[in-house]
């Protein structure tokens, strides 16, 4: 394994792991409140499209991030109304949200196909020579630098605050939470707004830092990988960091291996991320250490 390959894999997994991490954190908070959102893919697409559109219109990628987060919150509010207030089936509503997101993002993005934007600037650690290994490893956009702090903050919110305790209680036993004076539905709304903002930001990172273009369906299944990562992370934000790096790395690694001239068929190479997903699910299933919130996927319709 040559040095350039190692550097490339590390930098590549950080870059492509970032959007996975934001998406996973958002989904994780929602699931802690007992709501599984299969529409994450659509949510990310709306984030990617509206972030790109806002950047193209205003010239500021930071406003793009804000727009993506706002769009994500709005879309998840629709989802929250359906599954929390109207008690709709979460799985079916989530899939509907995914298709809604695919269509809506295409509509938002349509006028901006081919638009040129200045993406999120790379903020390099000062004193590094451009083009050097150090510059490749230590110059990322602001969303990359904020990703791990965001995971730590999410962990702190869930496990060290009264709000987080309430959230977890709602996810395990909303009736008990209600009896303790909490308002389960309000907490679920809050959790889904958080999830919406993070899902939107995840999409924005793809269009504003990685591709610098908008393309229909550009998340290419990464929303579903993020849902799998919540299981991988056992609903713990800190483990989500590991998972996001691992899965970001799996894709980066195979492309890097091809560039390095590894003697393996490119068709097999392109299967690696999915093989890894299967492997993780098999291993996790076998270990049977599930930590899923007890009420995940079920509606709380109040107490008698």
């Amino acid at each position, binding site marked *: 394994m040559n040095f350039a390959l190692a550097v490339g894999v590390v930098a590549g997994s950080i*870059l492509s792991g970032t959007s996975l991490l934001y998406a996973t954190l958002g989904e994780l908070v929602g699931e802690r409140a007992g709501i599984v959102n299969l529409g994450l893919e659509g949510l990310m697409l709306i984030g990617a499209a509206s972030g790109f559109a806002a950047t193209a219109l205003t010239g500021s990628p930071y406003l793009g991030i804000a727009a993506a987060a706002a769009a994500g919150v709005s879309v998840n509010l629709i989802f929250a109304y359906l599954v929390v207030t109207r008690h709709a089936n979460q799985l079916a509503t989530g899939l509907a949200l995914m298709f809604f997101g695919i269509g809506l993002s295409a509509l938002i993005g349509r006028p901006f196909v081919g638009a040129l934007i200045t993406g999120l600037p790379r903020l390099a650690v000062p004193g590094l020579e451009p083009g050097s290994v150090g510059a490749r490893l230590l110059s990322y956009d602001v969303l990359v630098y904020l990703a791990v702090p965001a995971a730590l903050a999410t962990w702190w919110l869930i496990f060290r605050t009264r709000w987080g305790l309430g959230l977890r209680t709602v996810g395990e036993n909303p009736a008990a939470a209600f009896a303790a004076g909490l308002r389960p539905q309000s907490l679920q709304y809050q959790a889904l707004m958080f999830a919406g903002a993070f899902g939107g930001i995840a999409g924005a990172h793809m269009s504003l830092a990685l591709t610098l273009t908008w393309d229909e369906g550009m998340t290419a299944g990464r929303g579903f990988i993020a849902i799998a990562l919540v299981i991988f992370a056992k609903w713990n934000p800190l483990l989500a960091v590991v998972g996001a790096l691992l899965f970001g790395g799996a894709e*980066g690694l195979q492309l890097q291996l091809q560039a390095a001239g590894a003697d393996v068929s*490119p068709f097999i190479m392109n299967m690696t991320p999915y093989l890894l997903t299967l492997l993780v699910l098999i291993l996790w299933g076998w270990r049977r250490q599930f930590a899923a919130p007890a009420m995940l996927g079920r509606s709380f319709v109040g107490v008698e």
Partner: protein
Amino acid sequence: MMRSVLAMATGTILLALLAAGPVAAQDKPPLTVGAIYVGSVNDYGYNRSMKDGLEEMKKNIPGLKLIEAENVPETAESERVMEGMIQQGAKLIFATSFGHQQFAFNLAKTHPDVYFEHAGGWMQAPNFGNFFGATQSAWYPMGVAAGKMTKTNTLGFVVGVPIGYAIGNVNAFEMGARSVNPKAETRVVVTGGWSDKAKEAAAANALMDQGADVVTMHVDSPATIIQAAESREKYSIGFQSIEARQLAPKYWITGLGFTWGPFMTETAKSVMNGTFKPAMVREGLGQMMAVAPFGAGVSPDVQKLVTASADQVEHGFNPFTGPVTDNAGAVRIPAGQSWGGEKMGDFDWYVEGVIGKAK
């Protein structure tokens, strides 16, 4: 899967719009032409090149009416979209994506009075012809440009799907590079799809990590890869639409683009005159392909070399003339033989100097 579901939905909406559109009360146009694109025409890539060609045709034939539909999937949905165009009076239809072929062909059988031109396929009928650029040999001068501009002797090539034609492009590129720089190597990364932007960015980065200082590609839209190279201050060479140079103001070298305009104009005229003849048209540089303008950093000497090489290809030079050796050392095209035409789809090997596996 999701792309196609989405595309299908979009196609349906477009069709509905077409069907509901008001009938124009103006004079009858001399010819109504329908065109379907698989993606958006603003992609700086393949679809843009088709759009540019059709616009040129429209300009050349006053009064011609052009009906277009973007994001038409390569499914039976495309047949319905084209059917709608025929109902609006289209007498000539350009089905511009490979997967539209069967559906256009079905319609050709049921509508013998409507003419069809399909990009990239092989089917033939009295009212159904085919056209495409002979891209492979046209990549040779691109290699000349890259071989001259590289300082690391490492070139990077992102390939969407390693079909024979794409491998042929890589091979001609590397042979062109070697013709001016015997040390030049081309590293290939396959992404597995014609349009997965995030993966294309990662692939370009991987190639640059391995030392590539010139990056090029064969995917639907070059936009992401060119911008990825520009952001790391590496050179890029475009493909599909010559307009892609706007994406890299500093490190653009040149590019290869399709110029469909003259062919489309001639085809439209032949339909108007009743002289349409179905054919399988494959034209290279000088006809269906053109070399894009050079970037600011390309010296006049290099420009001259590239232009001369393009001129040779235009006048019949075939890079695939034996002996040609593959990158495992076996002679694939013996001395005295040469490959051309439909043989270009048969590549399942890379030439000497390419680092990558074809299968």
